């Protein structure tokens, strides 16, 4: 259904829109089933996106050429 990959925000907005459309009965039976499938796909997509994110903390440092490198970040002990 989705032609281009939607961002999380777009997916969520689309999902909201679909739910409203179906709840308000604005779409026909066949279309509402299509939308339902699309919506469920979006739910899965959103969950995937949330679980796929980085989950790590890194430290940035300036390199000689002015660009930025990453390294391990040691979090200070909370006082």
């Amino acid at each position, binding site marked *: 259904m989705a032609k281009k990959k939607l961002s999380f925000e777009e997916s*969520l907005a689309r999902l909201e829109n679909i739910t409203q459309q179906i709840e308000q009965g604005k779409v026909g039976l066949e279309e509402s089933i299509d939308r339902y499938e699309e919506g469920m796909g979006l739910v899965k997509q959103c969950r995937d996106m949330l679980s796929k994110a980085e989950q790590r903390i890194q430290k*940035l440092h300036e390199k000689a050429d002015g660009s930025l490198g990453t390294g391990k970040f040691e979090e200070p002990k909370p006082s």
Partner: protein
Amino acid sequence: MKRQPFNPNLVTPSSTKAPARQSTPITVSELTARIKRAIATTLPSTIHVIGQISNFKRHSSGHLYFTLKDESSELSCVMWRSDAARLKFDIHDGLEVVATGHVEVFDKAGRYQLYARKLQPEGLGELELAFRQLYNKLSKEGLFDPGHKQPLPLFPKRIVIVTSPTGAAVGDIIRTLQRRFPSVGILVYPVRVQGESASKEIAGAIARVNANAELLGGVDLMIVGRGGGSTEDLWAFNEENVARAIFTSRIPIISAVGHEVDISIADLVADLRAATPTAAAELAVPVLDEILAGLAMHESRLFRSVRQITALATSQLDGLAHHHCFREPLNLVYQREQILDELCGRQHQRLTQQIRLQRQRVEKNEPTIQRIHPHAAIRNNENRLHRVMHRLAHITSMQCQQHDRRLYQLMLRLRQQALDIKLSHSDQLVSQSHILLSASLRRHMATLREHLWQQQQLLTALSHKRVLQRGYSITRLKKGQQILRSVKQLQDTQRIVTELADGEVESEVVNLSQLELFE
């Protein structure tokens, strides 16, 4: 050394040496040196002077030149660029300041000057003034305009924190981010957040993250800030370069400087100001659990509503399917047929009635029509024609018969005449032929008679009577007269007739025997 011009006041013959020494002219340089020495020994090395700035000039070299004045006096002042760089606020004419420095003579110009190392606004804190000045300046430029604020992403994937790597703030921010949205990527950009180079490092970090955002895999959001401290500690966030770096950043920035009460220029320029670093993290990311709950809610709402729709559709379909027109579809046809029948009947009735009416009219008018109709005349004429034709035929046939009769009579007469002629002619022929014929006849008759006799002799010889005469007999069954050819035709007591040459004898079979010869 040049000779001094003559001055009679200075010439006293009695005092040749000591007074002469005293009055010996000294060079400008010497005097200046003496004054310099005198000032240096008399005045403290650090002096604080209050006054209003006028004639302020910032030279291209970076040194500042100005005059401090009060109601009655003026004092030339200089501030070297190294000291000027440390000034938090802008200098302008009319500003009441306390200048701190030392007084020295500027040999070349022959005047004493205050070499200010520090300037402090009078009656107002230096930092407060600097803040106000920068605030006014940036405000005029529109850096605080709400129109310039960038929207924050709802779900940032990667956040850069520009702060001290050792402060409490970084820990607070990281913990809060991870608690709320564990999947978010966190990059810490370590900078000094107080001291001389802090603002430069902070501004540089902001610029560099913007420049390298792609390289870092995309940065959605920056948190710039530090934990609480004194006004001086937080000062870097009130610096113009930091404010401009924040304003220029394409990546949205949340500022989090000090505590709730501390408001910095950085806070005012940032896209969003957080009261504390923890608050910044809370503003930066939503709570993942809430989003997941929202997703689950959407899921169940979708499911429920679709189920509702399908259930409704199913019951509607069922209702329609049970409609009598589907259960007894022929009823529709029958109903229409009934209507058709009724219509037909009515039509038929109407037609018959009309026909009757028309017939009545016809019947009523028929005699008249008959009368006036040409049929009658035609029939009359036909009848007449018939009669005429009849008579004509009769007359004709009568005439024909008469002619026939006459013709016949004529024919008879004609034949008679022709016969008479022929007869006389034939008579001659007959008499001639008769003579010829009777001669040949006689001959022929004799031949025939001869032949007949021969035949009679032959026949007699061949007849069975002759055989019988030779002693043979013929035996027949009495009943049926069948000639016996085999004893198989016979039974005992059967009557048989035997024909002999001169008569018959009837006998009865008493003893049948069969010749074995043929068996």
